[in-house]
């Protein structure tokens, strides 16, 4: 039995006589953050967090603590019980998940789990030393163990590793970015990421402005993944569908996107950051959200599934995010036929090339309208080739319109890190290709690349 599951079982025993579910998250991580080619904010974190959910007569209360001795767990149980007693009964409560065997998934790597703080610092140094420009970013790796035990017989745990090199090469008037993420540190090459960031940065000097308007565009995986993620959180969760406020409402089963587009949420894919179960302990399943342009489904948890007589798909969020309803944490866009972003530029002909985005915000969730800025490598595309650099551009796009005509997608996909490491560590990322779109709306210009 893993230590995380043992802790969950101990917390469960502290909830004497009640229906209960204990969830533990144990984190051992290091993040060597650098700026100006110096490691300036190195952070080591070790924490064990226990969340205890108690159910009494249809009333639910949750308490969380990181004191794991017996006294601490007894206090935790008392607070959870008080919370449950304070809640009105919920007749629609789906109850705790029944015992289920989670799927066998990958996502744990001994070498990654064993990295020491010195190793993490050296991997950051490898990126810094490979960069001919000032480098900003971080190397991080972590071991996260999540376990759930319940009075309904659940006893599941998963050990996850993750590693990421994030490299932003930047000086006055030029900047470029690259990153690599994997649950196997052996697949992450900090020096290669740094060199890619430098190569991109060197092409951004003397950036010029662009008139606002609608452009055809190439979006690198970093840019496309972030757009898909922001759209998906509003559009592909069951709660938004049931509450008639998401783009998916009234469109399930309709062909609304380019037929080249297929999108799944797939926690089982070893190419991503695999997950065996969700925050209710339900087994993860692969959900086809878009199939050749047809909006097929959204993701479900036990509460939303009960409202419609369905089964959960294993997408319950942590309790702190419950207001969002079930969420897709393992988005995966199927690759297409293009061999490279150069091929996509040929398909675009005349337009722009976008490497990366900054500060996205959903302007209209019902219509999938998102605004944000490009950064660290925006270029004009002329005659089917990537041409002069552009300043950072403000865009305001309708995602359904952006996805309505995708002249090409690259065959290869990249795992784009989605974790910003707030709160407890929970590795997540999006598998995405680069794409060409017929419609990317530029609505303003901003700062130049660089520091």
């Amino acid at each position, binding site marked *: 039995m893993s230590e995380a599951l043992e802790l969950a079982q101990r917390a469960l025993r502290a909830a004497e006589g009640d229906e209960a579910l204990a969830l533990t998250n144990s984190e051992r991580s290091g*993040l060597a*953050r650098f*700026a100006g080619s*110096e*490691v*300036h*904010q*190195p*952070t*080591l*974190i*070790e*924490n064990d967090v226990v969340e205890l959910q108690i159910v009494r007569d249809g009333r*639910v*209360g*949750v*308490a969380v603590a*990181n*004191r794991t001795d017996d006294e601490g767990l007894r206090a*935790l149980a008392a607070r959870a019980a*008080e*919370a449950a007693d*304070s*809640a*009105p009964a*919920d007749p629609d409560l789906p109850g705790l998940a029944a015992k289920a065997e989670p799927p066998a998934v990958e996502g744990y790597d001994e070498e990654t789990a064993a990295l020491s*703080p*010195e190793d993490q610092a*050296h991997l*950051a140094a490898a990126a*810094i*030393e490979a960069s001919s420009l000032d480098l900003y970013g*971080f190397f*991080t790796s972590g071991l996260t163990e999540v376990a759930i035990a319940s009075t309904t017989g659940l006893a599941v745990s998963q050990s996850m590793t993750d590693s990421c090199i*994030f490299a*932003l090469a930047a000086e006055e008037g030029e900047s470029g970015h690259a990153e690599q993420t994997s649950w196997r540190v052996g697949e992450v090459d900090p020096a290669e990421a740094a060199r890619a960031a430098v190569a991109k940065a060197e092409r951004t000097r003397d950036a010029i402005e662009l008139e606002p308007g609608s452009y055809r565009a190439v979006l690198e995986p970093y840019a496309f993944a972030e757009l898909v993620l922001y759209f998906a959180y509003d559009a592909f969760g069951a709660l938004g569908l049931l*509450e*008639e406020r998401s783009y998916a409402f009234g469109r399930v089963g309709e062909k609304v996107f380019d037929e080249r587009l297929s999108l799944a949420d797939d926690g089982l894919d070893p190419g991503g950051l695999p997950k065996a179960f969700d925050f209710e302990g339900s087994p993860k399943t692969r959900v086809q959200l878009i199939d050749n342009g047809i909006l097929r489904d959204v993701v479900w948890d036990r509460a939303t599934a009960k409202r419609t007589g369905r089964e959960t798909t294993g997408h319950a969020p942590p309790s*702190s995010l*419950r*207001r969002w309803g079930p969420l897709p944490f393992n988005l995966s866009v199927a690759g297409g036929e293009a061999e490279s972003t150069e091929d996509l530029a040929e398909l675009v002909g005349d337009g722009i090339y976008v490497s990366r985005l*900054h*500060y*996205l915000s959903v*302007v*209209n*969730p*019902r219509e999938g309208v998102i*605004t944000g*800025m490009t*950064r660290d490598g925006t270029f004009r595309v002329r005659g089917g080739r990537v041409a002069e650099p552009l300043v*950072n551009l*403000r865009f305001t796009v309708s995602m359904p319109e952006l996805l309505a005509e995708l002249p090409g997608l690259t065959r290869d996909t990249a795992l784009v890190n989605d974790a*910003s*490491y*707030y709160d407890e560590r929970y590795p997540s990322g999006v598998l995405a290709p680069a794409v060409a779109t017929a419609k990317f709306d530029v*609505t*303003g210009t*901003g*700062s130049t690349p660089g520091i």
Partner: protein
Amino acid sequence: MRELCDEAVSAALAAGASYADARVVLRRAQTVATRNGRVDRLDDIESDGVGVRALVDGAWGFACDRRLSKEGAEAAAAKACAFAKAATGGHRRALAPVEPGQGEYRTPVERDPFEISLADKVAHCLRAEEGMAHEDVKVTSAFVRAQREKRVFVSSEGAATDQELVECGGGIDAMASRDGITQIRSHPSAHGGSSSQAGWEYVESLAFEREAPRVAEQAAALLRADPCPSMVTTIVVDAEQMELQTHESVGHPTELDRVYGTEAAYAGTSFLKPGDLGSLRYGSEHMNVTADPTTPGGLGTFAFDDEGVPAQRVPVVAEGVLRGFLASRETAARIGSGSGGSMRADGWSRMPLVRMTNLHLEPGEGSLDELIAGVDEGLFLQTNKSWSIDDKRLNFQFGTQVAWEIKDGRLGRMLRDATYTGQTPVFWSSLDAVAGPDEWRVHGLTNCGKGQPGQHAHVSHGTSPARFRNVQVGFKS
């Protein structure tokens, strides 16, 4: 807790640190949220631990431990030093001199929010939801929160502080849908309501029940409102949206770590340069911005920051000219001015960063009605809906939940889906009036993100409604 900090600092010095500080934080937070008449979230969270920061040969290291024991404190100190020693770089870091802070501080509260039962908090939310019942409103939600944080800090230079900060707050939302349109109204703010360092009396002052019917009716009315047209016009921005405008386009760009590039990889940098201090025209003469961690009720209120620097009120922009940066001891030494005072950490497991405390747009004169009366044609914009700004904090775009047409100095019809955009110094230069002290309110937000690993900061902004001329609303045609 003081002893634990002392032991951690001693262990760090013994491991080779030239400077070290330790912070024990005991945090308790309660959240009660209801949605469509049912409890959506009812939790009680505790998180305790010690964080140790060490400067070894000019390099920082930070480590933490959840164990509040001598063993835990010493382990964190040893790991912080080891990580610092492994850090790549030239490392010539210095700290601005400061008299070591010593003392205690407690948030004054009338009614401890933890003495209000969870059941009463649930009832408070459900009553507010009942007030938002409306045939077009598909989702009603309400929430209240409370937090108590005990922070004990010790540095190797002799700082020793003990503070207990108490917060509470909440908010309500009504989401209406009809014929393919969805609209939302919120009170007192969107995206997490508003909070204050205060007792339960603050939550009661938000008057959920009184405001609930208006919130629902306006959400429903927005379904029938015309979309806001694109144009260049005069806008009057309400105090709540001015909070975010000030936060994003003044607060973040004046953080000195961003100016020096150390946030480049995540939150971004700044259009400001160190040499701009004292000379850069940020906005019109009506623009006066002050950082003040002594503001009663502010979420950024304390007696000492997380470097033990005493709280101090400082001008950031005076009559439109840049007069100050938000700084740490390290960045203050680098720019050769001040002693920091804006270092804050999220809990015990994160390294302190330069953060906003309470950043205020100082009031001007007159009322909101007088601001509106001075507009022949324009818009009155209320309550944030969306927000985005570029990595140097120049190009921004904000959306608001509601816009009201202004014609001949009077409010007219309601409009939906309004956005406005601009370039920071150009926009602030178009400021021609800020309403007076009677309209000035302190708003507290709890979702300011920064740093890697990520940290949330709780900050407040005092603002009045303000008027800007020649602003692009919607998109340039």
